[in-house]
């Protein structure tokens, strides 16, 4: 965490970036990352609805449950993700934010599975750990909304 915070502080010195947490799983990570980033920076959050339309028999586009509070025009935005695998969610966020004309958009992720990527050219500039294709719980990661509160990351062996 200290290394990630130091990297961000070095790259964004005097630019007061906005860290944007993608709820809910990144909540713990962004809390620690913010405290480990020793420069002025803002915090904001966004939440997208998980894909679940088919259960209701319909088909829908992605829904933003919580949009940014901040105006990001001319700001440096750093999206804080818990994990990036296919990149579909991050791709959506980046494309959406870019329409608002920020100065820059980058991403930091605690966990990365680059070998699962469907979307290339994502601005994932800071990576905590490249991880194997396992399910994790704890440290904000959940399974059906359980175990987010575990203080450490755990690999889930069986569901």
């Amino acid at each position, binding site marked *: 965490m200290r290394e990630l915070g130091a990297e961000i502080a070095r790259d964004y010195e005097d630019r007061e970036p906005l860290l944007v947490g993608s709820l809910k799983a990144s909540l713990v990570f962004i809390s620690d990352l913010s405290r480990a980033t020793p420069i002025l920076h803002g915090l904001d959050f966004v939440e997208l609805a*998980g*894909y*679940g*339309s*088919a*259960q209701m028999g*319909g*088909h*829908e*586009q*992605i829904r933003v449950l919580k949009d940014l509070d901040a105006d990001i025009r001319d700001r440096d935005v750093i999206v804080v993700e818990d994990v990036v*695998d*296919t990149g*579909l*969610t991050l*791709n*959506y966020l980046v*494309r959406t934010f870019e329409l608002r004309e920020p100065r820059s958009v980058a991403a930091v992720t605690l966990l990365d599975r680059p070998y*699962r*990527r*469907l*979307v*290339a050219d994502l601005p994932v500039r800071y990576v905590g750990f490249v991880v194997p*294709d396992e399910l994790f719980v704890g440290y904000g990661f959940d399974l059906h909304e359980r175990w987010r509160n575990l203080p450490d990351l755990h690999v889930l062996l069986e569901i």
Partner: protein
Amino acid sequence: MGLDIPVFQAYRGTSVPRFASLAELECAKVLDYYGVPWLYEPRTFVLEEDEDGRVIVAFTPDFYLPEQDLYVELTVMKQSLVTRKNRKLRKLRERYPEVRIKLFYKRDLERLAQHFRLDLAS
């Protein structure tokens, strides 16, 4: 099969896609949900021919993502049981090194469809 095909927003084909399985339909919905342009089975790759040039083995990946220039083959099998598909992908990469293709696993679909209880055969 009698799948209820919705009106897709990010589909870039001209005719209504005829999915071979519910899992393929769900994969299309997921791509559409995230606004990623996609095509369904737009190209068949010849993998093996006999001496007379007749096609012995061919492979048609399920999806093509034009913005990513990426073919995607969906598999609902467990990752440890996809040897045959992996062999086809390996052959495709050998014969068409310029083509980018990835397997999209049941687990990928489940991660994206967190709240959707999709009954995918394994």
